[in-house]
């Protein structure tokens, strides 16, 4: 999905990092190089490190990805506030590219909700 969003990749052109994203119980190690995802591997991977992790419950992702999510389920930080998601680690890459990550993780919303 990201491949079809050159503007989003361009916004992440200064971003290269390893992060852990996805459902709380089975997240993915995601490798981002200059805004593009170059690898996505299901965790756990032996001794693989990450800078930050954003993990949410399956129910949270299901609602977040609806075309019109319910109030309080429509934003990454709304989910952390309601304790349906956790944000951990070194948050610097996440905060410097906050809108990038919000838009990246909302992509399934515009593609039928498929992960």
């Amino acid at each position: 999905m990201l491949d079809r969003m050159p503007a989003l990749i361009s916004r992440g052109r200064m971003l290269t990092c390893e992060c852990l994203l996805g459902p709380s119980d089975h997240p993915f190690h995601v490798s981002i190089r200059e805004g593009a995802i170059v690898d996505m591997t299901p965790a756990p991977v032996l001794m693989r490190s990450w800078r930050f992790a954003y993990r949410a419950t399956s129910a949270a992702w299901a609602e977040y990805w609806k075309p019109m999510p319910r109030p309080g389920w429509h934003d990454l930080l709304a989910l952390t506030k309601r304790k349906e998601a956790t944000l951990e680690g070194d948050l610097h890459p996440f905060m410097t590219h906050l809108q990038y990550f919000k838009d990246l993780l909302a992509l399934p919303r515009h593609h039928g909700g498929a992960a």
Partner: protein
Amino acid sequence: MNGAVEPIVGRYVHVGIGGENCRIYFEENGAGIPLVCLHTAGSDGRQWRHLLSDEGLARHFRIIAFDMPWHGKSNPPESWDGAEYRLTTVRYTETILAFCRALKLEKPVVMGCSIGGRIVLNLAIEHAREFRALIGLEAADFQAPWYDTDWLNRPDVHGGEVCAALVSGLIAPQSPEAARAETLWCYKQGGPGVFKGDLYFYRVDGDLRGRVEGIDTTACPLYLLTGEYDFSCTPEDTVRTAAAIKGAHVTIMEQLGHFPMSENPAQFRRYIAPVLDQIRNHSKLDKQGVTS
């Protein structure tokens, strides 16, 4: 459209705040009951441009929106030495009162959003008799923090980008894309540390829990309206606040978030026009001596 000139007029007024002259930029349109509009933290009066241009409302209200010092086209005071900006309850209240006096507004209505909604509650507590009515949008006596404001002003994070990205989630998903982008643009243009400094009032200095119970709505009607998608000042926060204030009117607005007047002006109008009508009718009755 080419050549269309909007009816909004912008001017500067010199206002004494904290013993010092401040050059305040304001925009206005309309005639009638003065309606002073307060912008959200880290933004400016442009948020109100749709309300300011509303012909129907401008027939009965003199709609005014001003930029707080440090915001929009109101520069920091001349004495500012670069020290960290921090808005306090006292300073914010004094600024609003001084602005209204400088323009010689007689019993204005004040409508504020977010921090503007919070300070409206303080106006209701301390200065109710000076106002015709008070309207708090996205207002509560307190709300739980959901991020660390230190991220808003540090050299290794782009302040404009992070401020806009943080608040972007407070806009309802139904809001038109252009209005969403315009709402965020003001956040991208804010001065360094200004949003954070406004939130000092919101998070630290302006906690009104335990004080709103003293609001007398017979002295000044109070209306609280909150968007259902606002997860910063949630509908529950507003309802809890209103429950402690006898006579407060509370409305939860559908398909709106934290910036109703700018994120979806047409949807907001559906809610605010009846409130302004009610205030206008109450004023008429007041003049006729029908109400107390």
